[in-house]
């Protein structure tokens, strides 16, 4: 299930990633730097303070490309902080971060995407308007690509409704679309399933798995390990700013802490909220 065989442009997958087999898209980067990218992300003794509070206490890890990593841990364990440090939104107080072979993430800005806890969208604009603006920040000016991205997450690009009026599930989908419109090879997602209905969460998970199958590297921070378990390659457990466990897939004890007896597995119980009234009326 987690075998990363390339699955370009497969017509069988329920979520279609159109045009993925085109080999001559714009932005074909030179092959220099290929050798330095046996690891997608490399952390060495990363420490991060906020005043006197140590959010990250020396994290050292390497992450190979083409896998889907799930960051687990309690509230305050440092998951979101770690993601923000890797993505370059926060500077580490000590230690070093290398992303895609480069110590300066700004130099590889076109190659990664980030979906935050907050939507990172303008409430007063429609989905396509938001996408067009944020795509332009990555040099993408064709409207068609923005429409593609919106369809990929299962929404209708022609929808004129302002994003501020969307349900949470729809808003998270658009936020994801924004993060992937430039087809990044590296993706960071911070709590993508929070307050999202089951159907949206499942579809997003399938999409993530599909993207991972295409060779992308994906990091997901979540409390809801059970949702993402089918596509997870590895899970990384943080506790009080330290990396305490790293395993293949997501073991059962981390899916539901109430089953476990081990004190190390302090993971929040999964919260899958079924919202029967919620419908994707415009999909």
């Amino acid at each position: 299930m987690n075998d990363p065989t390339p699955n370009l442009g497969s017509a069988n997958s329920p979520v279609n990633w159109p045009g993925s087999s085109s080999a001559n898209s714009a932005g074909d980067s030179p092959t220099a730097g290929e050798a330095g990218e046996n690891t997608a992300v490399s952390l060495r003794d990363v420490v991060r303070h906020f005043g006197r509070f140590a959010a990250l206490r020396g994290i050292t890890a390497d992450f190979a490309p083409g896998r889907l990593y799930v960051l687990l841990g309690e509230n305050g364990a440092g998951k979101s902080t770690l993601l923000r440090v890797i993505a370059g939104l926060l500077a580490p107080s000590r230690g070093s971060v290398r992303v895609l072979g480069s110590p300066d993430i700004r130099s590889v800005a076109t190659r990664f995407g980030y979906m935050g806890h907050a939507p990172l969208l303008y409430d007063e604009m429609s989905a396509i308007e938001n996408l067009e603006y944020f795509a332009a920040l990555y040099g993408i000016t064709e409207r068609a690509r923005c429409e593609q991205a919106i369809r990929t997450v299962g929404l209708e690009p022609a929808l004129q409704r302002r994003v501020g009026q969307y349900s949470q599930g729809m808003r998270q989908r658009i936020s994801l679309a924004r993060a992937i419109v430039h087809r990044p090879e590296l993706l960071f997602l911070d709590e993508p399933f929070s307050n999202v209905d089951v159907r949206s969460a499942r579809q997003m998970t399938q999409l993530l798995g599909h993207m991972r199958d295409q060779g992308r590297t994906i990091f997901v921070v979540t409390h809801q390990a059970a949702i993402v378990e089918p596509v997870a390659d590895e899970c990384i457990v943080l506790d009080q700013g330290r990396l305490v466990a790293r395993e293949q897939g997501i073991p059962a004890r981390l899916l539901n802490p109430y089953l476990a007896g081990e004190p190390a597995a302090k993971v929040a119980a999964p919260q899958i909220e079924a919202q029967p009234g919620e419908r994707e009326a415009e999909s």
Partner: protein
Amino acid sequence: MTTEAMSTKATRTEAIGTAPGFWSIARRSLVKDLRLEWRSKDAINSMLFFALLVVVIFSFGFDPTAEESRKIAGGLLWVAILFATVVALGQTWTRELRNQVLDAYRLSPAPPQALFLAKAVGNFIFVSILEVLMVPLFVVFYNLRSVGPLWQLLVVGLLATWALVVNGTFFAALSIRTRSREIMLPLILFPISIPALLAMVDATTSILTGDNSPIFWIRLLAVYDLVFTAVSLILFEVVLSAE
């Protein structure tokens, strides 16, 4: 292993983002801001009314003869515009903080200077709209008639507005990272703007009364504008990436 290497290479050729052009981003950001402002209209309505109130209150405070009015109108007008501007500028970055949209900009390869320029120009347009309302009101309330040519007043108006707006936009970005946001902006903007204020007031008065030449003041404003536009553009990246 080989399959993984293959898939990585395939993904790299797929990534279609590029570093975007400066002017393209600036233009799009400006259009986006204008569109958002037009749709929400929250700032412009209250600002227009505030500007009107300021003019009326000043008129109650100062009731000069026609001759006196020419001497003090320059000062009154620009102080009134300064107050209205500070209130308007305070809103500049609030929209970007909602939903943490600013993070999206920081993560992208788009140049920070383009964002700053777009914000500054947007504010310039915004303040100009306020001035278009306030100036005629001043003329009416004070029975103003200018001795000097109107085009000179226009030049002073443009240079002076940019002087207030360029630093105001930068300091507004600074002040959103402080505890008392609203008071912080005027606190740090006013002292640095003093030479520009002196210049715009004196230039306006010189033109209105015809007593002195405004040339030096116009040159000073131009120098001020150039210097601080450059400094703002250079240092904005530092402020944007401050956490």
